């Protein structure tokens, strides 16, 4: 059975900020239909460089939807420097925890955010280091190690 917290269920059943910001400052897309999980994240900054709106679209399980919804809520009011520091653990913590086999669903949100920030700054896409071990949304072994470390 799902061992989801009430917070996860709430964000799944009543997701916040679904959609796409038309004139977004940053857009990040990860995953693909083929892998069964995909996420599109868009954000808009205010005059002080803080995120004043964020929206998502997700194709994925309940954890992925809830994580995306949570992430967009967390982002609002943050500077990009603050936003960059969000880990998938933070997203899970915001939701009161995720089942351990579902922790990876929150990784997708973090990755989309990273991409969206890179996109905003106009930096060239970071060359992916490590070997791609998960065909779905291109998770690398290094990334998985990082996530494992972050998750203690």
């Amino acid at each position, binding site marked *: 059975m799902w061992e989801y917290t009430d917070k996860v269920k709430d964000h799944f059943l009543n997701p916040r900020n679904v959609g796409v910001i038309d004139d977004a400052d940053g857009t990040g897309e990860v995953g693909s239909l083929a892998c069964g999980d995909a996420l599109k994240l868009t954000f808009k900054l205010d005059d002080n460089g803080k995120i004043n709106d964020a929206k998502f679209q997700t*194709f994925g399980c309940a954890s*992925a939807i809830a994580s995306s919804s949570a992430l967009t809520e967390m982002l609002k009011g943050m500077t990009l420097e603050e936003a960059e520091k969000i880990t998938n653990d933070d997203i899970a913590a915001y939701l009161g925890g995720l089942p351990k086999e579902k922790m990876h669903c929150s990784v997708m949100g973090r990755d989309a955010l990273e991409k969206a920030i890179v996109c905003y700054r106009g930096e060239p896409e970071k060359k992916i280091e490590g070997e791609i071990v998960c065909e779905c949304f291109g998770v690398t072994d290094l990334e998985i190690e990082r996530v494992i470390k972050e998750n203690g």
Partner: protein
Amino acid sequence: MNIIYLDNNATTQVAPEVLEEMLPYFSEFYGNPSSMYNFAGQTAHKLEEARSKVASLLGASSEEIVFTSCGTESDNTAIQTAILSNPDKKHIITTRVEHPAVKNMGEYLSGKGYRVTSVPVDSKGRLDLDYLYKNLSDDTAIVSVMWANNETGVIFPIEEIAQAVKEKGIVFHTDAVQAVGKIPIDVSSTSVDMLSISGHKLHGPKGIGVLYVRKGTKFFPFMIGGHQEGGRRGGTENVASIAGLGKACELAAAHMEEENTRVKALRDRLESELLKRIPNAKINGDTDNRLPNTTSIGFDYVEGESILLMMNELGICASSGSACTSGSLEPSHVLRAMGVPFTAAHGSIRFSLSVYNTEKDIDVVIEKLPPIIQRLREMSPFCEAGNLKLET
């Protein structure tokens, strides 16, 4: 909350008549059937009564019925006994769409030096019979093909396959866990050597199964212990559950017609109404050869777990892929073997009905599911209104 249970291929409720049959064998007639005194003789007689009821549902004779602890044990036993009976043969044939109880036995054996042929299926889930027949060889110890698939309900032509296999003198086993009780089966008119049943798929208890073993089939026990089951399965007999399974088989025979008329009509209505109301929805599997109670429907651009969870909020129980693989995140091996596109495989939901379902159950699903799919599609990055159209 009122539960609408449409997951009868995962497990079924124990029929009230079955539970009643079981009750005396816990605290009242609890003797060990192997014991010599009269008090235990009652349990031994009950075993034989149940055995003959099971035999009768299958068109078998009582001596051909071996009670096991579940469908998985029946499958494991069949394959293991064929291997032990043919120590020189190092090849087995099975299919891409078997339950893990057969599939993982194949994988285990392939790690032990066996060559394992997995027969492919086409996009409708139909077996490539030529492929199967071409691969029969002097080295083949056993062919194991399920009678009906648990995820799509597709029925395979077991009589035909069994005959072709037997003509080559090869042992043939069928996992009939999903077929028994849903469609009429008469082993006596087939060339099937062994056949697996699981109690909890036909309103019997969990934790009881049967392996039918045709008279004359070479047999070695898988569960090694005492002399129970005519030396074919060690372990004190699970009297209460065996009594229950006997009753369940009797009931299944009595309900066979209802299953293939009323239940089938419910399934058909559910299916056609959902296809009518939800764009980009497609049935998985061969609708011409299908269990009467099962439908698997793929909804493009949405993900199965999300659909299940939203239905869960309304008390509707169904599954995506088989229960055994949910909890894993891969689309089911059955749908992948059929080449169902990822867009639909991830969003496939199986509804499996039973005689306990009502028109009202179906009404609720027909009303509630379309808006759920729509909401989820609105969240999906792949889905734009222009993509969607109704199947016609």
